[in-house]
């Protein structure tokens, strides 16, 4: 009884591995010392960060006047 289950499970696993093996992969070449030889994958991630860096409030900082989370202190009339 348990052997049949094992076979069924193994079949499922093989089928899944077949699907995953069929995926087209782009090659990753990462070398520690050579800054010129970057993989396309790493390059794409870096370029995305760079493109969006200026509009990332947590990177560039939020001006006090525009900070929605900052507590606004009430004005005190002296």
């Amino acid at each position, binding site marked *: 009884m348990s052997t049949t289950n094992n076979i069924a499970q193994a079949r499922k696993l093989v089928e*899944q591995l077949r*699907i*995953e093996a069929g*995926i087209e*992969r*782009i*090659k*990753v070449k*990462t*070398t*520690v*010392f*050579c*800054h010129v030889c*970057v*993989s*396309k*994958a*790493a*390059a*794409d*991630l*870096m370029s*995305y*960060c*760079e*493109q*969006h*860096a200026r*509009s*990332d*409030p*947590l*990177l560039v900082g*939020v001006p006090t006047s525009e*900070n*929605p*989370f*900052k*507590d606004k202190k009430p004005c005190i009339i002296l």
Partner: protein
Amino acid sequence: MSGAAGGVASVGRVQLKLRKTLKGHLAKIYAMHWSADSRQMVSASQDGKLLVWDCFTGNKLVAVPLKSAWVMSVAFAPSGNLVASGGLDNICTVYNIKAASPKTLRELDAHTGYLSCCRFLSDSEIITASDKLKRPQTIMFTNHIGDCMSLALSPDMNTFISGACDSLAKLWDVRDGACKQTFSGHTSDINAIAFFPSGNAVITGSDDCSCKMYDLRSDQEVIGYQDTSLNAGVTSLALSSSGRLIFAGYDDFNCHIWDSLKGEKVGVLSGHDNRVSCTGVPDDGMGVCTGSWDSFLKLWN
């Protein structure tokens, strides 16, 4: 990847200030989720309540009493009309929070295990993660061997990723339910998972005290984020809007900030008196929210 990123400018030390502490829960906070409007946020605590907050004012907008206090996950629907929660009751309950008083809309109870995470695709579709992942209508994703602890939707909503106690991360197609890719490398439970904003990479956080970035198109791990001084498991993570900063909550009561490209620690959010259990950055990227077992939520930017 860290080699490839050698030429990228450093982000320097990232020092964010605590802007608000949201007090209201009476017990450990287990989950939080930002609304799509980047202003409201829902939190879940084992005091048996969901609280919807206006994070600009710090006010509580809605309190939803839960049938079961053992909540582990909470989600805001993209419309802002609904929230969902679930936990050890094995049920995902959907609430309408726009009604005069919060109304239970649906109870999705066909789970055989506790509900660790849920995310809305729309007001009418929700993906839930329990010992099996499922979408209630037809599709059951039954590939993880260990309990699925976390899930995240891709920016284009066509795929989602799951992280599980079998230390694997898996990429799934939302429509046909097929598991497209599996990523290994962690040596313990994956508790947190998030998409890089371009949709081409995923970041995972694990009980093995490390985070990893896996690139989807090259199907492999491209960088690991670990530090010998960090001996606490990762409980949660969120990315800044450009993807450059990773905010990872740890069992050591802190949220550490990592440079996603260079793999270096660049900052820390300290202030909680207990484990940081959940972290989230709103869609507009204006801040980061940390929730903790100390019953407080903190907003930083």
